[in-house]
């Protein structure tokens, strides 16, 4: 049984090169994700954020470079090869990617069935039930089909499935895209609380500046086919790269900054918090 990862960097990307025909998406990209942090990944459309995520989770074989997750090399293995890391991460795809012929609860059971068939049916159902609630869905959502859910609920259902195996690492691909502002900030709270409660490391791709300010410990900026900067938002603001300046100091960036400055960190607290509420200590 794999022990929890104790090293400092669960994800290490070195010299990553991705090409689609003539088009070079990544050229010598390097990135390290610290254990226990929420790393936000930003970049313009087409800067290869999703391709980076797909490379890390082994869906996209890079042309060159090395990727290690929990100290295991992803790049040296086949997409379907079992190298013991697949049960230790959860992935939330942009559209949720729920299996449309299964209910939400059954969707959550799929990874449990796949990796731990020895778990009894009762226990597996119990686990699926509380995971659905942990993701902030109402009780009756567990027996519904994905097509009966709204976009926001589908994202939460996808999150419940991503959390099914108690992963140490969580990948979120634009979790708040397409959500209304209230739903988006609820999702941000949820992400942060789950990270603290479950001790997750989160790799979060986003376009949402409010999400960056609200939940991310560090932010990695993708531009010019590389990670041009990694750091906290104040650290990034101190750099003079034109794209970063434009991104954070553009009208939308300013608006997000101001809203943080005006109401401080209590902005999100005033909104009704979703489950789980952490009251243990």
């Amino acid at each position: 049984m794999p022990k929890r990862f104790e090293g400092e960097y669960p994800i290490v990307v070195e010299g990553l090169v991705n090409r689609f025909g003539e088009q070079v998406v990544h050229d010598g990209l390097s990135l390290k994700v610290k254990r226990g942090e929420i790393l936000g990944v930003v970049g313009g459309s087409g800067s290869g954020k999703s391709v980076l995520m797909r490379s890390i989770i082994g869906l996209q074989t890079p042309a060159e470079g090395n990727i290690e997750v929990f100290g295991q090399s992803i790049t040296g293995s086949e997409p379907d090869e079992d190298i013991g890391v697949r049960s230790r991460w959860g992935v939330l795809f942009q559209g949720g990617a729920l299996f449309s012929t299964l209910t939400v609860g059954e969707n959550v059971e799929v990874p449990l069935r796949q990796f731990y068939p020895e778990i009894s049916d009762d226990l597996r159902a119990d686990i699926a039930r509380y995971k659905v609630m942990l993701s902030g869905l109402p009780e009756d959502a567990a027996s519904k089909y994905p097509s009966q859910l709204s976009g926001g609920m589908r994202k939460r259902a996808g999150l419940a499935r991503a959390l099914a195996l108690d992963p140490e690492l969580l990948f979120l691909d634009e979790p708040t895209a397409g959500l209304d502002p209230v739903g988006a900030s609820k999702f941000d709270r949820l992400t942060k609380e789950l990270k603290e409660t479950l001790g997750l490391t989160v790799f979060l791709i986003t376009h949402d500046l409010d999400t960056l300010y609200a939940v991310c410990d560090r932010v990695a900026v993708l531009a010019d086919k590389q990670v041009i900067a990694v750091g906290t938002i104040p650290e990034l603001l101190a750099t003079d790269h034109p794209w970063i300046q434009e991104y954070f100091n553009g009208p939308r960036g300013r608006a997000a900054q101001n809203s943080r400055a005006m109401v401080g960190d209590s902005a999100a607290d005033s909104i009704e918090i979703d489950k789980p509420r952490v009251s243990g200590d």
Partner: protein
Amino acid sequence: MSGLAKFAVEQDDQGQGTLFLSGALLVSTVSEIDHGLEAIDVPLGSVDLSQVEEIDTVGAWIICRLSLRHDVKILGASKRAQRLLSAVHEASNDADLSPPVEPVWERVTGYLGTKITETLIGFVQVVGFLGQILIGLGNVILHPSKFRGRAFVHQLELVGVASLPIIGLMSFLIGIVIAQQGAVQLAQFGAETLTVNLVGRITLRELGVLMTAIMVAGRSGSAFAAQIGTMKLTEEVDAMRTIGISPIEALVIPRVLACTFMMVLLGFYASIVAIIGGAVVGDLSLGIPFFTFLERIKDVVPVYDLWVGLLKAPVFGLIVALAGCYHGMQVRGNSEEVGRRTTMAVVSAIFAVIVLDAFFAVFFTKIGWV
């Protein structure tokens, strides 16, 4: 090795038990102790977690379940364990995972009722769909610029030209089988030469068009349903509507026209190839020279046999295209529906074609085309 979950129960003087959990309580290990914990019959007063080395939400749930059942005190929980316990406790519920299931008698009668109403509604909808197509056709005739020429030609190619090899092969083999089997039976009366009549009349009147319609339903009707169905799922059809393009005019009419038109040509082509197949058998095993066989066809097959085939062909083509497009447009919800509708399109098209063929057979006999 610390990777295993273990438990032990100790009882004090009053019969109150204390459960000692140790090792790793993780999703990968709890199944080993799950049954053992379920089987504890001693009244538990407390659970000691001080020996637990690792815990995740599944481990926490196991403890939470015990505490819900036995009302126990939890001792020696680490900070992480406390957090997980409270989070899991908050999230505990007894929701159903599978959709609600009704009792058998309700389900059966409900199923029957839905089927009947669906059939009736389906019939009305098909008529409505046909009406929409006619309106669309009217529009296209009034405003010829609305006609999608390129789509039409593309469909002509897909439905017609691309299926020439498979329909040719099928018809050729059918011609061979009819001639060969027919000759064996006719030889009992010494009437092998009537094989020419048999092959010529049955392929032109019936089999050429019927088999082609079945093949086109399988090849093109299913493709129509799947294409249009997928476009419904990805909201392409809705996008068309909002831009002001009528999906009937853009998607359905080119397919229906192409299929109707091509069925005539394909049906004729199939009959001719089947006759050639028959002539090959005649040449090889009946001693009727190839060209004599073809000459004889001209003498023994009345022209109206050709008309019988050619009049049926466009009707069959229309039905196949209509079924494919109709079921495609009916797709809603999920990807499974695309498959279901595609199957329904093919099955209902073939069924309707065969039923109509029976009507045609009676009709043409009645008007004297025998």
